[in-house]
């Protein structure tokens, strides 16, 4: 949803908060119903209510409480964020990108190749290069079905599915032949250079000991501060005190510079002295920040730019888009490219940050691309809503193991619960019925998430 803010007042904030709660209430209800129904199913299949209790306690403990529980939930959430942003981006433009899994693979193999190709680059160059290459790989893989749709009208659902299979086989070939690590007995690519790794959270203080790395981080923080200050300067209360465009510019640049310099000087000693991400977070990596940034970026792109306006118009009503002079074909290719790029980055984070060998082994992904469709639906395609939704799915995926260990309830029950969540989200009518809500006429015309079908 776009939101152009007028003068913010107390009532305005109240309205915004109410709106957010309103948007959250349906998914929350759906989740609770799903868990309740899941408990019923566990009770029926195992014959005792306590099994469901033990299972859920195990699930929650495994997902959040136990050592590395929270860390692992976040680790699983990172690729989910990127992949489901990819799906949601397609939704916004009226496209159903089922090819996220394939684009994920292409991104992963590109990252593995570029990561291993250079050994003596500093991280400040190598890491952005690898991420960009993975994004480009995914973008090309997404753009092909996009182009086919724009030029010939071929349906993207069919073509992205077919591109998935091409991707699997292509990556299999590349991993077991061209990029293969001949030394290892396992079939996997060569380990990427340390400069291309996504730093593990625990290793950040060590990494920052290198001034070049500290500079890298400081630049990124300055960049983030710049955009933050720029947004801030536009909000009414602050812009009132910055009465000229020049002073606004000074404000923005000043904040960016200050935060950059400060973090360059202070971050290395500070992280050394107090760093919460200890070795209990040894698998969590800085891709987490990248994921947060990606969600914010997508929110901005979709809701605050002309590009987003065009994509959303094409998604919501292609005829009106054509009428308004929007180039539909270009929008479709662009949307599929951005979607593919996000999926490609998802693959890269797994190779560069999680994979034990920091390489791409055979049989890599386990359906991140498909789970992400569910997440995007749960978040109703909203860029910021995807963050909590991904975390939920990451936590479920992670907590499932301890649940199974503790209670003997198969972790496939988690898939069932995920499916139920989706069912309740995708069919608000059921939830309304269960909660005896009257259908308001205006709500019936909800924005279609997947116009892609049947056109």
């Amino acid at each position, binding site marked *: 949803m*776009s939101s152009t803010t007028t003068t913010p007042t107390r009532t305005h904030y109240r309205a915004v908060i109410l709106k957010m709660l309103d948007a959250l209430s349906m998914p929350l209800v759906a989740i609770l119903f799903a868990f309740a129904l899941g408990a019923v199913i566990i009770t029926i299949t195992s014959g005792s209510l306590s099994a469901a209790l033990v299972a859920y306690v195990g699930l929650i403990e495994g997902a959040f409480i136990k050592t590395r529980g929270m860390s692992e939930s976040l680790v699983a959430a990172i690729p989910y964020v990127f992949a489901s942003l990819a799906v949601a981006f397609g939704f916004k433009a009226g496209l159903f990108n089922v090819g996220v899994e394939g684009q994920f693979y292409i991104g992963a193999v590109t990252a593995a190749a570029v990561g291993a190709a250079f050994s003596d680059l500093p991280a400040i160059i190598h890491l952005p290069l690898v991420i960009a290459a993975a994004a480009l790989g995914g973008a090309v893989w997404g753009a092909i079905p996009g182009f086919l749709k724009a030029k010939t009208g071929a349906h993207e659902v069919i073509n992205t599915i077919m591109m998935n299979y091409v991707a699997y086989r292509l990556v299999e070939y590349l991993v077991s032949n061209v990029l293969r690590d001949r030394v290892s007995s396992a079939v996997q690519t060569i380990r990427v250079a340390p400069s291309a790794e996504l730093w593990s959270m625990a290793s950040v203080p060590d990494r920052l000991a290198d001034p070049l790395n500290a500079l890298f981080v400081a630049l990124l923080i300055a960049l983030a501060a710049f955009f933050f200050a720029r947004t801030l300067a536009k909000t009414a209360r602050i812009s009132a005190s910055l009465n000229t465009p020049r002073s606004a510019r000074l404000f923005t640049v000043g904040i960016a510079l200050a935060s950059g310099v400060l973090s360059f000087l202070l971050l290395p000693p500070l992280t050394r002295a107090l760093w919460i991400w200890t070795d209990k977070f040894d698998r969590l990596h800085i891709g987490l920040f990248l994921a947060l940034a990606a969600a914010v970026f997508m929110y901005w792109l979709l809701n*605050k730019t*002309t590009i987003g306006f065009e994509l959303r118009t094409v998604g919501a*009503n292609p*005829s009106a888009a054509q009428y308004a002079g929007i180039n539909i074909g270009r929008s479709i290719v662009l949307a599929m490219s951005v979607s593919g790029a996000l999926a490609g980055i998802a693959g890269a984070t797994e190779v560069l940050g999680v994979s034990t060998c920091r390489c791409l082994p055979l049989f890599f992904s386990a359906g991140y691309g498909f789970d992400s469709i569910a997440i995007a639906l749960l978040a109703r395609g909203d860029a910021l809503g995807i963050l909590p939704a991904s975390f939920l799915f990451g936590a479920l995926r992670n907590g499932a193991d301890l649940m199974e260990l503790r209670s003997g309830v198969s972790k496939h029950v988690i898939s069932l619960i995920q499916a139920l969540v989706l069912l309740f989200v995708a069919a608000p009518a059921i939830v309304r019925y269960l909660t005896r809500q009257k259908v*308001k006429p205006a709500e019936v015309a909800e924005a279609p998430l997947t116009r892609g079908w049947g056109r």
Partner: protein
Amino acid sequence: MTFALEANGITKKFPGVLANDNVQFDLQRGEIHGLLGENGAGKTTLMNILYGLYQPDAGEIFLNAQSTQITSPHDAIAQGIGMVHQHFMLVPPLTVTENIILGQESLYSSTKFLGRLAVLDRKSAAARIRELSHQYGLDIDPDATVKDLPVGAQQRVEIVKALYRDADILILDEPTAVLTPQEADDLFGIMKSMAQQGHSLIFITHKLREMFAVTDRVSVMRNGKMVGTVAPKEATSEMLAEMMVGRKVILQIDKSAAHPGGTILQVENLRVEDDRRTAMVDEVSFHVRAGEILGIAGVQGNGQRELVEALTGLRAPVAGKVSVLEHDVTHKPPRAVIEYGVAHVPEDRHKHGLVLTFPVADNLVLCTYYQSPFARGIEIDAAQVEREAEKLVNEFDIRTPSTRTLVGSLSGGNQQKVIVARELDRPVKLLIVNQPTRGLDVGSIEFIHRRIVEARERGTAVLLVSAELDEILSLADRIAVMYKGRILETLDAKAATREQLGLLMAGVVGGKHV
């Protein structure tokens, strides 16, 4: 005399709206009872209650003087109430017979074991349809496929469907909104014949002329209340309009004589084909000058849509040339055409004109979002968009809770005002309006007509395409009549008469059919 139907004190609340407030309504046997009201006046709610879609919060319904409850549309049909919806409930690939017997099988199978087989006997169903068609002059071929039928015929299929189910009372919800004047006249004939044979009809519309043409009595609703019931003989258009809107309405637009300037739009030998490669516009040439309104009259489906699409860049012409102010725009994309100063109020506001799931503000900048001051670089300046939206909402009297309200939740009239506001706000050289007031209420029609005339007076060239002869006659300075893709004749509006135009629209030139 007993009433076929009587509704007493019907009240229906929706969250925040009192849709029907103690409404009194009655329907005599063999009567055509008109129901008039602006959008949102509560007509549709009342009919939905009578058809069993809603349950009233208070009030009572009598059928043939018996108190009754109508629990569902199924129940309504069982009690002899049929409804012809504005949007047809037909399955296009099936035949007329199949459409009509669809859903009927349950009536039989619940009583007789072999009922399902009996339903599949299309022959006797077709015979019955033929008989009904003949009895009421409906002219329906039971074996035709619905998707091949013109709109008017599809509507008659809906009527037969109701009659086939033994409807005594028939509700027609804005049946003329989709019809050409001729088809509307045919429909009125059918309605009268049905009334003569003892059926009672409720006829919903907001076109005043039709009320006088066909009804026995007219009830007017406003803001959920029943304002009153009058006989058309004793009423005037002005009176009905005032009852409907609640204030005096100027039905005839005052406009000064045209002072045409230089040629803005020049169309030469234009030829346009539709998606099936049939020529829809054939060797059409005309021009529109600054400060005049050229009306294109004609029965819908004679190439007007394709003509407008070709002029605005939405459809590539096969041959010919279109120029706007000396610029050749024949094969230019829509954005280029817009940037030459062409504004376009499209025929189908839901399909082309609006993004229903977007807020009012975003719809108001749908064509200009990328220009200064709304965009800087690729970033949209939300504050500027908001400022523009608020300005237009005030200027064009768009009734909306806020500029962030989704346009889809506005009434049709306000939706159309959003489009008109957006298109007229730009520095426009040529305004192309296609069916600008279709389906709108009297108040909105008046408003939009005034805006079109104002645009002309500012020196804009206006091309007005409309199937409503009244609209063309009251607005246009010159009138071109389109028939089967060609312009048969262009007349001076002052000299043209209804009859003359009606004949041209039917393809009759100089006493001979072309």
